[in-house]
């Protein structure tokens, strides 16, 4: 148990370094401004957003296609499925010896329950990028 926690201690050290390295790079780059290695000459054109050479126009919170939202909802549904299927997959070798075919059919029932709404969403046209519900 102690060993198990020690591993996560090393992982925390690793995570801190993984954050520190890019921040350090940015910091070195930033500090180079003060010793006049890195130029800094901003002007109005340079500081405007680059939209292929045209001056930026239009409302600033940009409106975008609603289609992205459908994919996000579908993602939530099926990502939960993967979370539930992982433990079963890891222990399947043990389970199939212990319970035989019941372990298999239990998961097939679950897969069936998940697949039905998938087919429903497909038939309704929610998987299409070009939305065309006539």
């Amino acid at each position: 148990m102690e060993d198990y926690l020690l591993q996560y201690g090393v992982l925390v050290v690793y995570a801190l370094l993984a954050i520190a390295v890019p921040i350090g790079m940015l910091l070195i780059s930033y500090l180079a401004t003060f010793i006049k290695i890195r130029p800094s000459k901003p002007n109005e054109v340079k500081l405007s957003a680059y939209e292929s050479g045209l001056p930026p126009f239009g409302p600033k919170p940009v409106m975008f296609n609603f289609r992205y939202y459908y994919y996000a909802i579908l993602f939530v549904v099926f990502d939960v499925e993967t979370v539930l299927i992982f433990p079963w997959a890891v222990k399947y070798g043990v389970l199939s010896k212990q319970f035989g075919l019941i372990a298999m059919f239990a998961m097939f029932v679950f897969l069936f329950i998940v697949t039905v709404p998938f087919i429903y969403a497909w038939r309704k046209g929610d998987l299409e990028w070009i939305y065309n519900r006539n």
Partner: protein
Amino acid sequence: MDMIVENNIFRFIYCNLVNTNESCSDFGNFLGILPLGFEWLAFLISGFLLCFIYINGILGAVILSIWGERRLYGRFQNRSGPNRWGPMGVFTSTADAIKVMFKEDVVPVDADKFLFNLAPVLMVFPVFMVFSVIPVGIGTFVVDLNVGLLFILAVTSLSGLAVVIASWASGNRISIFSGLRAVAVLISYEIPMALSLVGVLMLSGTLSLNGIVEAQKIPFILLQPLGFVVFFLASLAEINRTPFDLTEAESELGAGYLNDYSSMKFGIFFLAEFAATIGASAVIATVFLAGWKGPEILPSHIWFGIKLILVLGLIVWVRMSWPRMRIDQILHLAWKGLFELTLINIIVTTIMISIKPDPSVNEMWIMAIINWVICIFSLIIVSKFLNRSVKDNFSNLKNTTPYPVGTEKIKSSFINKKEMVN
């Protein structure tokens, strides 16, 4: 302290610092600089040094891989590639890294300053974290988590967040479109990516990557061809590589969410992208090509390196061979193609394991042949099916406004001024 005994680098540093009997006694003379009460200090120092070595190794590998890939692109296009700095141009990417560090840094006025600076850090963090659980050789890893594969999947999904933050903080409409596209692709491909690993988990019975390597009597690419194909395509999409790199579709979006990034921030995005490529090939090499396992002619680290470079070469080959796909094609491939393939893979593997719970090596070869036949048939069927659904889509297109623009000829009525006013 099992962890110290298993992890060679960690054990070497730790035992040189504090020579305790329980973990260092079985072989070798270690220095033992610190007195015996300071195990915690030795633990911290050796953990830090181990992580430091690892991260520096990753940075070095990225610098080398950028040079190597550019050389390969050159050879694919029948030119010589970068060849000026150092022998065969090895130092080209080093020079690039130093140059990009001292370029002028421009932050646009519309940008959200804090998020704009946060995004590159958030982008590179998950990529570094992926490497922490990958065993590079026998006993060479940072940590061997018992949930390693799940950890990788969890951590890589952070990169989607980084892309959204980068695109939104730029305050640039082109960046936002690119970021939203990227997220749609990233989250769509996460599902086939996770489900394609289920077959591997069933065969190995563990989530630890070291355990998966040890469980491979024959490489899992033979037993799980369908899983390999799906995982390879999904990881190409996750790391924004061609043919799925529409976030950086130059003809439509400029550089995508990188439009307003300059100087070291751009450099870090660049680093993250190439490090992600190495990370993806490392995961594929570990999970499907038996990682550090190989005949004992060569040391385990070299075997891992060879496999990693093979997968990296395959990714470069794919990049040079295929054109970029449209967003609807990419999303349809994920939902209508790969998702079904993973379900087929899960069902086939489940049935196979129920028939033979503990197969010998010979039985595994028979399983491999059956799996390959099923793989090729299901790939053909699904590709025919996908092709049909794409054609259906185009027949629908005639009745609606063409979107994305440019896939149809612009009708003359669109140019009519009256129509435009209405």
